[in-house]
C-alpha cells in the first residue's frame, strides 16, 4: 500500500523549498534553483500518481490512517494524520499536474528575474507543499494550519515584485481580505470543537455527519452557524461575493503564480473545504441554500465584470471567480439533492468542474503569460494580431477558451452541463434553485462572449502598438500543449472506467448504483437545456465575433447612454472595489481618527493631568509653609480640636 506514504507528498516539495532557500548560490545550478523546484514538484507528482492509482483501485485511507501526536494538553491530544479518499485523490491530481507544469513553465518565464528566481522557486515550492498538506489533512486544525500557510504563500508570491506599489498593495489586500474568511473558518471550527470535542474528520463525519448533528441536539442553530462560518472561510479563499475583490488585484504577481493560484492552489482550497465539509453541510439545509445563493451571485456578477475588463489577466481572474461560483453553486444544489434523494450528482458535478477548470484555467493563464512575455503589457487594447506570430499560444488559448465556454466535446462542456443540470434538478426541492439556474445559464452565455472577446482582441486584427512578438521557448509551449491535451480530454473522465460520478460519490458515503455511463451521455445529449445553453454559448461567441473581429462595428455605442452607464459600472467592477476603498478610507479611517483623538485628548489628557498635578500642586501647597510659627501652632491646635471632636462625637455615633 502506497497510501501510507502519502505524507511524503508535501514533504518532497518542502525539502526542495528548504534546499533552495539554504544552499549556497553556486550549488543551485540551473535557473537559480529551478532544477530543485522541478525535482520537488516531479517527486510529489510521482507519489501522487501512485496514490491516485491506488485510490482508483478502490483503496482509501481515512479513519485508520497513521497519525502522530502533535500537541498534548493534559489527557487531550491533537493528532495530525492523513486522509486519503476519492476527493483527496482528485485534488492531488489537480495540484500535482498543474503545479509541476507551472514550475516547468516558470523555468523560461522567470528567466529575466535573475537573482530573485531563487526566492521565487523557494516560495512556489512552499506554496505547492502546503497545498498538498491541506488536501491530505485529516482534521480541521491541521487543515487550518495549512490553510493559513497557503494564505501566507499567496501573499508572498502576489507581492513578488514588491518594489511595485500595486503589487505590494495587492498582496496586502489578498492577505487581509482572505483573513476575514479565515476568522470565520476558525470560528466555525471552534464551535464544532466546543460541541463535539474533536477536530478529526473521522469523529465529525461519523455516520455521514449524523453524529455531529446529535451532539448539537440542544442547539441545532449553532450547527447551522458553524457550517455557515466554515463556508465563510471558503468565501474568503475562493473569492466569492462579497470577498472576491482581492483575486483580480492578485494579478499583480507573476503570471505563473496567477495560474497556480487560480488553477491548483489557493482558490481551489475554498471549494475543497466546502466539499470536504459536506457531511456537516448536508445536516444544515439553511447553510446549503446560503452556499448556493452566494455561488450563483458570484458566478453572474464576476462574469459581467469580465465583459468590460481590458487587462488580459483580469478577464481571466473574473472568469475564475465566475467558475468558482459555479462550483460553489453546484455544491449548494448538490446538497439539496443529496438530502432529498440521496444522490451525489451535484457534488460530483462540482468537483468534476473543479478538475476540468484547473486544467483549462491553468492553460489560459499560461497562455496569457506567454502573450505577456512576448508583448510586455497586460493591456489587450495594445495587443492584436498575435495569432500569426504566436501560432502555438494562440491555438492552445483558443482550445482553453472553447473549453471554458463549454463547447462539446471539450471538458468544460461536460462539467458545466453537469453542474447546471444538477442545479436545475435541485429546483424541485427548493424553488430558489430555478432562479440560480437561470443565473448560471446567463453566466454561461456571458462567459462565451468575454472569452472570445479576449481571444479576438489578442490574436486577431492588426497590432495596436509597437512590439516585436515571437513564439515563446519550448519550455513554455510544451506545458501549454500538455494542458491543451488535458483540457481537450479531461471531460472524458465522466465516462472512463466506472465513471466519475460512481468514483467520487463514495467520498461522501454514497455507494448505490449510479446511472449507466451511456445513460449519462444520453441524458446530456437529449436534454433540451443542454441545447439551450449550447445555443446561448454559440450566440455569445458570434456576438464577440461580430463586435471584435469583423470590421465596421462601431464600439462607441457602448460608451453612451444607458449602455454607457452600464459599461462604466462594469469598468468600475460594480463599484464594489470602490465601496471597499471608501469604506476603508471613510469609515475605518474615520473611526481610527476618532480613536486617535480619543487617545490624544482623553487618555493622554488623564495622564497629563496627573503629571501636571504632581508638577504644579506643590506651587500651591507650599504656600502653607509661611514660616510663621504662630500660624503653625494655630493649625496644630485646630487639628487637635478636630481630632477630639471626631473621637468624642463622631466615632461613638458610628458605634465605635
Amino acid at each position, binding site marked *: 500500500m502506497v497510501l501510507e506514504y502519502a505524507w511524503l507528498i508535501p514533504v518532497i516539495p518542502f525539502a526542495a523549498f528548504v534546499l533552495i532557500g539554504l544552499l549556497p548560490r553556486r550549488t543551485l545550478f540551473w535557473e537559480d534553483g529551478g532544477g530543485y523546484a522541478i525535482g520537488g514538484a516531479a517527486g510529489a507528482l510521482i507519489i501522487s500518481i501512485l496514490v491516485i492509482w491506488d485510490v482508483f483501485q478502490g483503496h482509501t485511507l481515512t479513519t485508520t490512517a497513521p497519525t502522530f501526536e502533535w500537541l498534548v494538553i493534559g489527557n487531550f491530544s491533537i493528532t495530525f494524520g492523513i486522509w486519503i479518499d476519492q476527493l483527496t485523490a482528485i485534488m492531488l491530481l489537480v495540484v500535482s499536474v498543474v503545479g509541476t507544469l507551472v514550475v516547468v513553465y516558470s523555468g523560461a518565464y522567470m528567466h529575466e528575474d535573475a537573482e530573485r528566481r531563487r526566492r521565487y522557486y523557494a516560495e512556489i515550492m512552499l506554496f505547492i507543499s502546503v497545498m498538498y498538506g491541506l488536501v491530505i489533512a485529516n482534521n480541521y486544525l491541521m487543515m487550518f494550519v495549512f490553510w493559513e500557510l497557503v494564505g501566507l504563500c499567496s501573499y508572498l508570491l502576489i507581492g513578488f515584485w514588491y518594489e511595485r506599489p500595486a503589487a505590494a498593495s495587492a498582496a496586502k489586500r489578498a492577505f487581509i481580505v482572505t483573513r476575514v474568511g479565515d476568522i470565520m473558518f476558525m470560528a466555525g471550527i471552534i464551535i464544532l470543537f466546543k460541541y463535539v470535542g474533536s477536530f478529526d474528520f473521522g469523529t465529525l463525519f461519523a455516520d455521514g455527519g449524523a453524529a455531529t448533528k446529535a451532539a448539537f441536539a440542544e442547539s441545532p442553530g449553532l450547527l447551522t452557524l458553524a457550517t455557515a462560518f466554515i463556508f465563510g472561510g471558503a468565501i474568503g479563499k475562493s473569492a466569492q461575493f462579497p470577498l472576491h475583490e482581492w483575486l483580480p488585484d492578485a494579478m499583480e504577481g507573476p503570471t505563473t503564480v496567477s495560474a497556480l493560484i487560480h488553477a491548483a492552489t489557493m482558490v481551489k482550497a475554498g471549494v475543497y473545504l466546502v466539499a470536504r465539509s459536506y457531511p456537516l453541510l448536508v445536516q444544515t439545509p439553511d447553510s446549503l441554500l446560503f452556499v448556493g445563493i452566494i455561488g450563483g451571485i458570484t458566478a453572474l456578477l464576476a462574469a459581467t465584470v469580465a465583459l468590460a475588463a481590458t487587462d488580459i489577466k483580469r478577464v481571466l481572474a473574473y472568469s475564475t471567480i465566475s467558475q468558482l461560483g459555479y462550483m460553489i453553486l453546484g455544491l449548494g444544489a448538490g446538497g439539496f439533492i443529496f438530502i432529498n434523494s440521496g444522490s451525489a450528482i451535484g457534488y460530483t458535478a462540482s468537483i468534476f468542474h473543479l478538475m476540468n477548470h484547473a486544467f483549462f484555467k491553468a492553460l489560459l493563464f499560461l497562455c496569457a503569460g506567454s502573450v505577456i512575455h512576448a508583448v510586455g503589457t497586460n493591456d489587450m487594447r495594445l495587443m492584436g494580431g498575435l495569432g500569426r506570430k504566436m501560432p502555438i499560444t494562440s491555438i492552445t488559448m483558443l482550445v482553453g477558451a472553447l473549453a471554458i465556454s463549454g463547447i462539446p466535446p471539450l471538458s468544460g462542456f461536460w462539467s458545466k452541463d453537469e453542474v447546471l443540470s444538477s442545479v436545475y434538478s435541485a429546483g424541485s426541492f427548493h424553488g430558489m434553485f430555478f432562479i440560480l439556474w437561470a443565473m448560471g445559464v446567463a453566466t454561461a452565455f456571458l462567459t462565451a462572449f468575454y472569452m472570445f472577446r479576449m481571444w479576438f482582441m489578442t490574436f486577431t486584427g492588426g497590432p495596436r502598438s509597437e512590439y516585436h512578438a515571437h513564439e515563446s521557448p519550448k519550455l513554455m509551449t510544451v506545458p501549454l500543449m500538455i494542458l491543451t491535451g488535458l483540457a481537450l480530454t479531461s471531460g472524458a473522465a465522466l465516462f472512463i472506467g466506472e465513471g466519475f460520478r460512481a468514483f467520487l460519490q463514495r467520498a461522501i458515503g454514497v455507494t448505490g448504483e449510479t446511472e449507466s455511463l451511456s445513460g449519462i451521455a444520453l441524458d446530456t445529449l437529449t436534454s433540451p437545456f443542454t441545447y439551450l445553453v449550447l445555443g446561448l454559448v454559440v450566440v455569445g461567441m458570434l456576438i464577440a465575433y461580430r463586435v471584435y473581429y469583423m470590421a465596421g462595428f462601431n464600439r462607441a455605442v457602448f460608451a453612451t447612454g444607458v449602455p454607457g452607464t452600464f459599461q462604466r459600472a462594469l469598468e468600475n467592477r460594480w463599484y464594489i472595489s470602490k465601496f471597499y476603498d471608501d469604506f476603508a478610507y471613510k469609515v475605518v479611517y474615520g473611526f481610527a481618527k476618532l480613536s486617535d483623538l480619543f487617545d490624544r485628548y482623553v487618555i493622554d489628557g488623564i495622564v497629563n493631568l496627573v503629571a501636571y498635578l504632581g508638577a504644579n500642586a506643590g506651587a500651591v501647597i*507650599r*504656600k502653607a*509653609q*509661611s*514660616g*510663621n*510659627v*504662630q500660624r503653625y*501652632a*494655630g493649625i496644630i*491646635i485646630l487639628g487637635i480640636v478636630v481630632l477630639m471632636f471626631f473621637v468624642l462625637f463622631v466615632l461613638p455615633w458610628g458605634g465605635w
Partner: protein
Amino acid sequence: MIPLEYWLVLSSLMLAIGAYGVLSRKNAIVVLMSIEIMLNAANINFVAFSTYYPIVHTGINANGQVFALFSIAIAAAEVAVGLAILLTVYRRYRTIEVDKINILRW
C-alpha cells in the same frame, strides 16, 4: 476636699489661656511664658489625678507627682534653651517679634 472637676476646669482654663497667648502675642518672651502656663496646666492635671487615686483605687500611686516634677525640670531646661535661642535671634535680627521672624518659609 476640693472636687476633681474644679482642678480640671482650672487646668483647662490655663491651657486655653496659654494657647491664646502662644497664638496671639507677638513678643517671643511672652509666647515662651504662655508655653510655661500650658505646661503647668498639664502639671495640675497630673497632680490632681494623682491625689484622687486612692479614692478610686486602693493604695497610693505617686506616678502623677513624679511626672509633674519631671515636667517642671524639663520646663526649666526648655526655658534655658529657648531664652538662649531668643537671645541669638535678637542679636541677628534686632527683633524678637515672632511674625517678623519667618525666614524658614517657601
